[in-house]
């Protein structure tokens, strides 16, 4: 969990970007009725297993993206770029310089949606949740469509170092590419280990991977 920003600064960022006003339609956006919202959050949850109350605390990226109306607006373009830059700067590149792991392991990680829920154990090997949102290997019929299809990804993108770096940065920290991407920041948030990210990069780029067959 690198670069987690404390709750209060996250909240302050939220206030700053949204402004404490009711929207024109009379709705309470972030920044308005904050006291009631914070009271609701505080009284609404209890710690469960490994899911501690601290998970309700937002970092700057999460706070910004929790007001999508603003986050998508023209005025927020600068802030979006700022958030992407900060996420990009935080990326940890492979320690041995090698981006490609084992695509077979990558397939297993992509299949698994387990890990880090209140009913998971701390020593649970986390999955990547990839098939929940993406089509990947053609043989898997149970895939989600929240994200784009990745079938044939490596065929199209090639296997250059540039392709490997781009793929790594997307999986390690999706918000470095798109500030409010729906995709989790696998490496950045400690969901996936460095080796797991390598295996996923291999799943997408290895010419022998089922993704590219």
């Amino acid at each position: 969990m690198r670069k987690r920003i404390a709750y209060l600064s996250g909240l302050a960022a939220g206030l700053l970007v949204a402004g404490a006003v009711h929207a024109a339609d009379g709705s309470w956006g972030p920044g308005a009725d904050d006291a009631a919202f914070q009271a609701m959050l505080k009284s609404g949850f209890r710690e469960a297993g490994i899911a501690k109350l601290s998970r309700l605390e937002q970092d700057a990226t999460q706070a910004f993206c929790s007001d999508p109306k603003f986050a998508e607006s023209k005025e927020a373009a600068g802030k979006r770029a700022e958030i992407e830059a900060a996420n990009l700067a935080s990326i940890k590149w492979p320690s041995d310089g090698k981006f490609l792991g084992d695509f077979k392991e990558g397939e297993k990680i992509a299949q698994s949606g387990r890990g880090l829920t209140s009913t998971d154990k701390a020593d649970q090997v986390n999955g990547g949740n990839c098939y929940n949102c993406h089509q990947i290997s053609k043989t898997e019929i149970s895939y989600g469509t929240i994200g784009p299809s990745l079938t044939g990804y490596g065929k199209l993108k090639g296997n250059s170092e540039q392709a490997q770096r781009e793929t790594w940065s997307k999986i390690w920290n999706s918000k470095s590419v798109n500030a409010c991407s729906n995709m989790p920041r696998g490496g950045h948030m400690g969901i996936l280990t460095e080796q797991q990210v390598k295996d996923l990069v291999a799943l997408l780029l290895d010419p022998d991977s089922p993704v590219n067959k």
Partner: protein
Amino acid sequence: MTRRFAVGLATCLAVAGFAAGTARAEGDKTIEGIEAYREALKDGNPAELFEAQGEDLWKKKAGPKNASLETCDLGMGPGVVAGAYAHLPRYFKDTDKVQDAESRVLTCMTTIQGIDVAKYVSARWGSPEKDELNAIATFISGMSKDVKVEVSTAHPKERQMFELGKRMFYYGGGPHDFSCSTCHGQEGVRIRLQELPYIPSPKGAASGWTSWPAYRVSAGQMWGMQWRLADCFRQQRFPEPIYGSDVTIALSMFMAGTSNGATMNTPGIKR
């Protein structure tokens, strides 16, 4: 929310176009199969067993006051169950709170039966206490089957609850950065093979709101909306929402209020 966030890598979008042709034919067959499966499930919903249990619990004398819940006011006057679920959540003067069906039942258990509901609130999902609450909610919701959803946001507290729910819907956090809107914030997508209702639209809100409580075939369990929401938060990697807390009622208010005019189809049956 008018526009969606751009999804992912620009290069991925190109790949999506490339793969769409072959994926679609295979995908259509899969969806057809899943639809046939769901159709077959409709005939004979085990939720009926829970409705019957809930009705028994509703009518049974219990608690220190040895009273039944039959005089409980679900918002349409003491003892009126028919149609009540379609008007919930709503503001209740006696508690000065906006309540959903499940939190209102806790109030009635406390005031009418004299039961200390703390252990019902803290009990784990799947415990006998929670099973009782789910059965009662199933019974109450069944008494609103085919009734139009008519949820008021006229009272300031109702309006506030609706807005708090909308804001909660977009509140992202935890190790995965997930919010409700990560999955339910765009039209026409699915997780694995499960279509995801776009909750901020009346149609999407209705498809979610009007079919819970529902029997979950995967677990063989009856889930009220409280459990449904708790499991959403679990998958979101959030801590656990407290049963009957304002967070849960706010989200229900957002969904129910957005689905006004739709028809209750409870209890439902789900994967």
